[in-house]
């Protein structure tokens, strides 16, 4: 061991990452819809400990959501069909955001809509709100009958909505959250980049279904739901690998992250940052633990800057 690396072991590793000009103190965020408006977790962990919070998908006006049952547990995963229930962007900005702004973490707003105009309206409104660091365009939620999901079936539509939304958010960086229910994620990643997206969130949930074999009815009232949790992680890691190699903009890795090691898989595969989703439900302080765990991983291995890990996968020859 050289003297440099000995010294390095005493220096705290550099944990901050940059996503489209916004600094995150570390690459750990919580995923939209799995962390409410953030404040629900403030008694259970230190919200200042993580890089960012992506709040529940917001529309301009409140949305009621789907009838229950809305969730069902499956092997190492869960299905949900919440259906965009949210308090509306106005209410969020009036009541939740001011409290969230007391914390030293980045607030990102996930935006949802049924038609292009819905997206543009909420985007224009949020673009002017101080305290928000970026917008995450959700065109990949499978749980509404008529909704943004149809923008994620053909890369041309993905291009259009991204380009239009980008125009509507001149101030805020625009992230696009992609669906894994596609033949080629790289194609969609490229369409977003070409349309001016500032970053990509990869991935949203898989469309799944479970059946009550006694009643012969779907377990979810909405019939299908989005599959999340550790079950989908191997597919998510692969998609992050493919997407991050297809574009130059940063990719944020999502899907089944429940430990430091899981988060590392995504970073090494090519993600600049990660979002923790379903695991928040069963271990409410898991995002804080992962943020600490990443720091510890770097420290023990003399990695001075976490950015060194990003995309550092060594394929076999």
């Amino acid at each position, binding site marked *: 061991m050289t003297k440099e690396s000995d010294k390095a072991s005493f220096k705290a590793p550099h944990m901050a990452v940059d996503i489209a000009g916004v600094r995150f103190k570390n690459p750990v965020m919580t995923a939209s*819809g799995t962390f409410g408006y953030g404040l*629900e977790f403030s008694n*259970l962990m230190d919200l200042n400990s993580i890089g960012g919070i992506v709040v529940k998908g917001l529309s301009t006006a409140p949305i009621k959501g789907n*009838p229950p*049952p809305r969730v069902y547990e499956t092997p190492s995963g869960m299905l949900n069909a*919440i259906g965009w229930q949210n308090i509306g962007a106005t209410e969020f900005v009036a009541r939740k955001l001011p409290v969230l702004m007391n914390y030293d973490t980045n607030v990102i707003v996930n935006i949802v809509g049924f038609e292009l105009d819905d997206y543009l309206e909420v985007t224009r409104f949020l673009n002017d709100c101080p305290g928000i660091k970026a917008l995450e365009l959700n065109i990949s939620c499978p749980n509404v009958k008529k909704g943004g999901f149809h923008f994620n079936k053909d890369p041309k539509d993905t291009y259009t909505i991204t380009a239009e939304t980008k125009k509507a958010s001149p101030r805020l960086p625009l992230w696009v959250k992609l669906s894994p229910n596609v033949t080629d994620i790289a194609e969609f990643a490229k369409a977003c980049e070409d349309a001016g997206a500032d970053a990509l969130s990869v991935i949203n949930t898989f469309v799944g279904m479970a059946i009550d074999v006694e009643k012969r009815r779907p377990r979810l009232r909405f019939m299908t739901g989005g599959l999340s949790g*550790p079950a989908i992680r191997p597919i998510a890691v692969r998609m992050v690998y493919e997407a991050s190699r297809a574009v130059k903009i940063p990719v944020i890795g999502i899907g089944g992250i429940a*430990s430091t090691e899981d988060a590392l898989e995504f970073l090494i595969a090519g993600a600049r940052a990660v979002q923790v989703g379903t*695991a928040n439900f069963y271990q409410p302080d*898991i995002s804080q633990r992962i943020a600490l765990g990443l720091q510890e991983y770097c420290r023990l291995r003399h990695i001075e800057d976490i950015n060194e890990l990003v995309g550092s996968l060594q394929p076999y020859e």
Partner: protein
Amino acid sequence: MLDKKVKVKAIRELGADNYLLTVNTPEQARLVRPGQFVMLKCVEDLAENPLLRRPFTIFDIHRSSRSGKPAGLDLLIKDVGVGTRKLVQTRPGQLLDCLGPQGHGFQVAAEMRNRVQLAYLVAGGVGIAPLFLLAQSLLTHGIRPVLFYGGASAADLVLRENFERLGIECVYTTEDGSFGERALVTQPLAQYIRSYRGKNIRMYGCGPWGMMKAVHLLSIENDIQCEVSLEARMGCSLGACLGCVVQTRDSRGEEQYLRVCQDGPVMNSRLINWNTVPL
């Protein structure tokens, strides 16, 4: 609300797949109000199935035999699936993840004293769980609880001695007639309501959706305030996932989805749209 690793103190089989689980957790025990619940999971690998914690009502506060101070929680757990099976197979000394106390409990307020005379507590099976702390609280407020407790068979009427020891009136029904009256619990309940007409009464229920709907209808017919404790599949219990909702109607008839974990589990029965499909 706290998230603690708590130790199993005792686990007692009650028959018909029911168990009484006692966990040590003084801090959490001190915070409990009647009708609240905790989220439990065996502490092993975080990755164990089932992933999600499971909700259980706090049956009673376990008190230190020396000081009489709250020392832990008594939970009634019925083994119905993979998560409950793991919990009832725990042994003393084992650690559980325990989040709570959670949720909005029963409304028993000081101003009810002298105004309310009687409270009908209606339980189906493990629905008995929230009613024991409630009964104690009612007694403290000078209100007389009467328990209506129904099950398929005698063995399902677990922990009834605890209520009898409080010295309150208990009415039992079973579907097979093996104990108490052979009837649905709502039959004697309806009779009592008829006989005590004129008194200021409250109703409190916990049990299967169909039973609660019947209890609600009785409360409407007889113009009695009624609170029910609801069940729902839960993701987080924190109000964050919006997975546990129940369809409700506000005073203006507006449909709205409320969260059983935070807006409930106890709700005024009039809020609920009873024509929906339960979990």
